[in-house]
């Protein structure tokens, strides 16, 4: 190969420097979290910390056990996924495959507006409107429950799942659909057996990114779920998520205290989960590009 121009090499070098810098920054953030977080192991052993359910950081006899928080986060997030996946993917299928173009043009901006609502507004809505309704419908004393959080989180991540799934469906080559129609398949059979399977990597990415967004969300869960750090037994129990725990306790904690280290450890767990989810999503994208 001929010699590359100097300017070209400078650009390549710059781009690789930026890419490496961002990896470095991520690694540094994790290191920083972990450097503070691991000190909690001086107060209790990891087994208790990760698998105990007693989170009492400010009592006379403080406990820093995180399972209730982890489960709290997971219950709300998975509940939200259970609602948002069928709705989001269903909307995406409808808009890309079924709806006449002019209708899709009207509906699409509405979903995009949903994505632009600040989460504190959604949280407020859950607190003031949704919670009383849940309390009424299920006969529980307070509607501030995991269910409430899951519902409002579902609304929040719906646009993420819908938009990315729809893009994936629209990217399925026309030739696949034509081949299916030419075999005598109906519209529905073509959607089910050809379009959706071909778009599956993209839909999976949409779901993973939705999950990542839901588990990292703070404001909505803080306002909607009642914030009781007890082990939930069902969707109608109040829960406290990892994010809201950090948000509400970090402000008052004494730096260098056990409580402070414990909150950093919670941060590490969150970080690890969202890192894993994003890594999985980008691996799927990469694999799709190769084939």
């Amino acid at each position: 190969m001929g010699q590359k121009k100097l300017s070209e090499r400078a650009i390549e070098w710059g781009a690789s420097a930026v890419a490496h810098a961002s990896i470095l920054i991520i690694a540094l953030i994790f290191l920083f979290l972990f450097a503070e977080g691991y000190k909690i192991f001086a107060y209790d052993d990891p087994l208790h910390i990760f698998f105990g359910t007693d989170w009492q950081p400010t009592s006379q006899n403080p406990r820093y056990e995180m399972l209730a928080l982890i489960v709290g986060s997971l219950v709300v997030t998975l509940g939200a996924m259970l609602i948002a996946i069928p709705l989001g993917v269903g909307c995406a299928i409808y808009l890309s495959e079924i709806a006449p173009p002019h209708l899709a043009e009207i509906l699409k901006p509405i979903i995009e507006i949903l994505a632009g609502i600040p989460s504190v507004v959604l949280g407020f809505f859950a607190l003031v409107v949704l919670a009383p309704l849940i309390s009424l419908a299920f006969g529980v004393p307070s509607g501030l429950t995991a269910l409430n959080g899951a519902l409002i989180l579902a609304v929040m991540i719906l646009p993420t799942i819908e938009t990315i799934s729809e893009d994936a469906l629209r990217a399925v080559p026309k030739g696949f659909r034509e081949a299916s129609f030419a075999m005598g398949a109906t519209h529905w059979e073509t959607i089910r057996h050809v379009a959706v399977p071909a778009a599956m990597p993209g839909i999976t990415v949409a779901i993973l990114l939705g999950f990542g967004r839901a588990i990292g969300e703070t404001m909505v869960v803080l306002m909607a779920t009642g914030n009781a750090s007890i082990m939930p037994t069902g969707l109608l129990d109040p829960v406290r998520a990892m994010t809201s725990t950090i948000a509400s306790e970090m402000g008052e904690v004494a730096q260098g205290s056990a409580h402070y280290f414990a909150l950093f450890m919670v941060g590490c767990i969150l970080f690890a989960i969202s890192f894993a989810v994003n890594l999985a999503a980008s691996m799927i994208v990469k694999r799709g590009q190769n084939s």
Partner: protein
Amino acid sequence: MIHSRDVNLWYGRKQVLFDVTLDILANCTTSLIGPSGCGKTSFLRCINRMNDIIHSCRVSGEIRVGGIEVYSPKTDVVMLRKKVGMVFQVPNPFPKSIYENVAYGPMIHGKNDRRKLDAVVERSLREAALWDEVKDDLQKSAMELSGGQKQRLCIARALSIEPEVLLMDEPCSALDPIATAKIEDLINKLKEKYTVVIVTHNIQQAARISDYTAYFYLGKIIEFGKTSEMFEKPKEKSTEMYLTGRFG
């Protein structure tokens, strides 16, 4: 086998086919030739109503395939397309395994018995002259095949539901000469069992494989007849010019 009477076709306000009248015989290969944009693809897609999925497209006139009145409102398009298979210009296997590609048609038409599907897959792949190359690894993704193999897979997929007619729109245009020769051999065998209608830009190919040829120009059929006769002594000036390569 296929009878077309005064078929006109519009995309929006633009008329693309003018009074196309043509009789295609069973168990023959008929090629449609003509310069680019003259409406060959549009006519082909009338026969299995693939034009239905283009919103702006409107068709008048009459087409009969076997006993089916293609454009009658009572016609079941699914039944029609089971009878009239299609192979496209760009090989378009599904991103699934070889087996699933061929089993797709029978499966959506309600054949679920694994042993029967196995038999259909083998028969179709044999008919498409692909069996020997892929029989050891039917679970391999169709995306890993070569271009020519992909196109034969698409032919196998079309044959899996035992159509009577096979429509092919420039099936070799994306292939090299060797893969093209394989497909031409295949088409010569297929006409024993199927009625083949093929669009091609390759005049030698039309001469090699077809019994009848229809020459389209600006949306009209200028000349139709036995390939050997037309290529030897074209009746129309325009046909002669096209065949001798003076335009097109």
